[in-house]
């Protein structure tokens, strides 16, 4: 059965602390969803969706999991506040219509979500945060088997599903994450979630 994943989310930490999270400027024209593995663009430092293939410890590798969706900004970090400055942008990514005789003025729908030119991510670094994601195998659902833990955890990768465009733990890969257990919130069966940590050899430390 073709897999339909759910957003990756942090569920606990090894240390018992809060999952390490930071906000970075969002790169231009990004449309990734909540729970997406993200990287940092070499050109301008903006957060971009991970390409799914770069497994390094340097630039282009995963830096974390987004905890909010991208805002499709017109330029990288549009409106993000600089130190000691207020937000210089609109404060929202959604506008409508036009303003008579004021070409640069914008109508913000009342109640439109706030936007400060940045996007928040849970850091993959330090291998402290344990994430949960749907288990799959090369585009299909997969069953969790406790035997996967027999060698200290199964190595796997991350792949985006073709339906919901969320990312899942892919048993068809072996180079990105280590599965460390079953997500006990799900009943045993196809499409359940597993807990994983990023491999230190496959992330960019921040």
């Amino acid at each position, binding site marked *: 059965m073709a897999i339909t994943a759910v957003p990756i989310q942090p569920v606990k930490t090894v240390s018992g602390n809060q999952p390490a999270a930071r906000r970075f400027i969002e790169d231009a024209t990004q449309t990734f969803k909540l729970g997406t593995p993200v990287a940092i663009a070499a050109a301008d430092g903006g957060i971009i969706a991970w390409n799914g293939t770069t497994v390094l410890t340097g630039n282009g590798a995963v830096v974390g999991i987004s905890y909010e969706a991208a805002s499709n900004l017109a330029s990288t970090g549009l409106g993000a506040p600089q130190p000691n*400055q207020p937000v210089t942008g609109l*404060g929202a990514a959604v506008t409508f219509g036009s303003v008579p*005789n*004021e070409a640069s*003025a*914008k109508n913000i729908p009342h109640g439109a979500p706030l936007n400060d030119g940045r996007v928040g991510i849970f850091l993959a670094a330090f291998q402290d945060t344990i994430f949960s994601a749907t288990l799959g195998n090369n585009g299909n659902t997969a069953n969790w088997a406790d035997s996967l833990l027999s060698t200290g955890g199964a190595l796997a990768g991350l792949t985006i599903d073709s339906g919901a465009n969320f990312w899942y733990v892919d048993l068809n890969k072996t180079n990105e994450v280590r599965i460390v257990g079953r997500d006990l919130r799900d009943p045993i069966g196809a499409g359940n979630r597993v807990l994983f940590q990023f491999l230190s050899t496959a992330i960019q430390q921040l």
Partner: protein
Amino acid sequence: MLVRGSFAQVLAPGVHHWFVHFLDLQMRREEYSTIFNVETSAQSFEDEIEAAGVGVMPEKPEADAVLYDDMVQGGTKRYLHLSYAIGSRASWELIEDDQYGLIRQVPKAHVRSAQFAREIVSANVLNLGFSTILTIDGVSLFNTQHPLLGGATATNVAPGIANVIFASGTYPNRPSPDVDLSFTGVQLMINQFERMPDSQGLPVRVKPTTILIPPELKFIAREILGSPGKPYTADNELNALLGEDLKFQVVHYFTSQSAWFAVADKEYHQLKFFERHPIDSDYDDDFDTRSTKIITFQRFSAGATSWVGTWGSNGP
């Protein structure tokens, strides 16, 4: 992390005086609240929307039908509150052995830091008002061509502004080119205030009352605004600026030594400071180490809804 090794001098009594900057040196009096309209907020952000009235009421010839005109809705200005916070940590041993109670005073340093954040963020609304700080019309706070909702019709209606504006349908609150603080510069500023229209071109009651300057300009300001005769001439003319009842205020958080600004009384301009969460401190002890963590935080935003009632020149 403050530990006994890094603050060894507090461990032994006998020091006559600790010259502690955040205790012995007074911070300048609050300045942002004398310039900005300070309001409170209970939301993540505050949206403000502009609306213009109708144009000039025309004659209705006898038996002719009345002309209808519509109000104009303008854009939106959103104030997005940011959080500001700072923390300090001290070991339990240091706090217990501190003979002067100095380490316990750290929250006072935090408050000073918090107050500075308010001042500098607010001042940067003006410092950056020539570039990145935008008002509801989508252009910089101080601009030679603020577009009017009424467009060219508004500037056709507004009386006597032909020599004041730089483009039809717009109005300036900045000279072109920028001018130094001077007698003629202040006159130019007053003229732009006097002719200031609303978005339909109807003159508005707005009068500059305060010139905001960096410390370096206070001597010039005193000469220009305080001289009984016209400054820098030997003709014994009256100082015509005396009748304008202008005062100047030094703002110690301005970054330029030549930029200067003018504002009307608060009720006539839309510079705003929203307090979402007042300066607040909290502390807790780490159970394992018994170290104390102290944090101070606040949330606020500052900006300008409209340019009306403000004026700025970025020096020459």
